[in-house]
């Protein structure tokens, strides 16, 4: 057997290493997510107990807001073993291909975390609803008004693919949105190896700067092509109509360009992460 080929045995060993060395991180993370979300929903239900409904849209909105936090503090914690010289030494010396080490990190941070989070989120909603219902008796016993809040049943598919239900846009708009979201995830993943412990702070700043750059592009292009307006109130208003020319159906060229850029950048940052791992010295 070629020892330098990808090996399932080594990948399993690397998974064992990951889960054993960072056991506290996983235990605290999973239990922490469960208790925080459950507590949050119980608080929300109580705060809204005299209103009429708590619906699917709120569940969906909170799911994505919390998923964003997960990207910050879950995906952003990739390659934790490369944060210090002492742990890097152990990690890089461990027999395994850079590809195998990369796969383990990608699987746990980018694939496993969101799935685990979704499961925890669904469980938390169920537990918090039951807790809230149980507390109904307590509130009525002490003579206060009875609870009026009706909580919708969670529709998991609607939560996972809300765009399909709420947002009827062109395919390119979906590609753009997923491209930007995917780029943010890939940036946070690569940030673990680029910025180390400062990743959760620095990479979002980089991302915001990138988005700012995209947002400013039409304005700066207007300044270059048309000139800077004399009226100060119009200085940040694009003078060029970027809705034309249209590319595909209902797709402005600029949106198409940004979409392609976002997808290319997403792949590029995953590739950069691999190279950084391979070329890491300690």
């Amino acid at each position, binding site marked *: 057997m070629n*020892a330098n080929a990808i*090996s399932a045995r080594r990948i399993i060993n690397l998974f064992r290493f990951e889960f054993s060395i960072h056991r506290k991180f996983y235990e605290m993370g999973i239990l922490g997510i469960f208790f925080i979300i459950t507590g949050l929903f119980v608080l929300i239900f109580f705060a809204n107990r005299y209103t009429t409904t708590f619906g699917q849209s709120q569940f969906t909105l909170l799911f994505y807001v919390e998923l964003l936090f997960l990207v910050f503090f879950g995906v952003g914690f990739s390659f934790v073993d490369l944060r210090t010289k*002492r742990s890097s030494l152990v990690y890089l010396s461990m027999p395994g291909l850079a590809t195998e080490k990369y796969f383990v990190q990608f699987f746990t941070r980018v694939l496993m975390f969101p799935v685990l989070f979704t499961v925890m989120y669904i469980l938390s909603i169920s537990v918090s609803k039951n807790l809230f219902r149980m507390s109904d008796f307590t509130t009525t016993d002490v003579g206060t008004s009875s609870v009026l809040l009706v909580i919708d049943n969670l529709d998991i598919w609607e939560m996972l693919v809300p765009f399909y239900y709420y947002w009827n846009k062109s395919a390119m708009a979906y590609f753009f949105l997923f491209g930007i979201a995917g780029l943010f995830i890939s940036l946070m993943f690569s940030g673990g190896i680029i910025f180390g412990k400062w990743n959760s702070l620095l990479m979002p700043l980089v991302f915001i700067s990138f988005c700012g750059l995209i947002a400013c592009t039409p304005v700066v292009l207007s300044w270059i092509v048309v000139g800077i307006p004399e009226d100060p109130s119009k200085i940040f208003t694009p003078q060029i109509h970027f809705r034309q020319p249209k590319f595909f159906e209902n797709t402005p060229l600029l949106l198409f360009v940004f979409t392609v850029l976002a997808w290319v950048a997403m792949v590029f940052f995953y590739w950069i992460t691999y190279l950084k791992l391979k070329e890491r010295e300690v």
Partner: protein
Amino acid sequence: MIVSVKDLNFSYRKRPMLFEGLQWSVPEGSVVGLLGKNGAGKSTLLHLLSGLLFPKSGTINLGQHIPKDRRPAFLEEIFFLADDAAYPGNMSIGEYQKLMGAFYPAFDSSQFDQILSDFGLEKKVKLNELSLGERKKVFLSFGLSTNCRFLLFDEPTNGLDIPSKSVFRKVVAGNLKDEQTLIISTHLVADVEKLIDRVAILNAGKIQLDADLLELSDHLLFGNSSSLPDDGLYAEKFGTGYQFIRSRKEQEAQTPISLELLFNAVLNKSLSSNSIFQTQNAEVL
């Protein structure tokens, strides 16, 4: 030669060159003492040999492996015992062995148990309950049990108490196989004196001396005298007299090598591989 370093250039970023055209080779099965002053680059050289640092130019080969590639076939054959490696404190020695031993195909658990008991340690103890010296013993035991072809120990006796240093020598000598090559970097010369069969002295970015200890004792005579010897290659004050190194004549009995004196002689540029073996080379030629 199982370890071969050719024209190695290396420097840390924004720092002067540490190694310039460094040449070094180690025969298979050697136990080499890599000696050098603080900051001479001993640990850096071990990092380069283990693929944790990359040369700026030049080549390094360990067997057929190029360390820089960090291929699994190489990583499975090398164990680097660093002075300051991280460890999972909440794990017991037994758990650590199971977790890390799985990465090394030739890892021998019974050998690990034996070495551990030689050091007087129990597997159920957690790593963060051990002292620095005890942890060193665990990692030494682990390193030897991996049965890797290349063992690189960086300051292995740091933190060991005096009785443990003696056990260390016995354990290392008793667990090395003929095909294993061990490089020990240390500034505690006396700790490895009875263990190594080869010495390499690193100074000013070069290997100033690289010699087999048997050859050295063939060529050099180490002694003490009350006055400064006339024919000494190197001498230094020792108490009321002098310690010296001079060329050994054929009929003279061999003397034990004083690594410390040899080290000082090389650093003072009184000795080098060329000056020691000049006569022999001339004869060969």
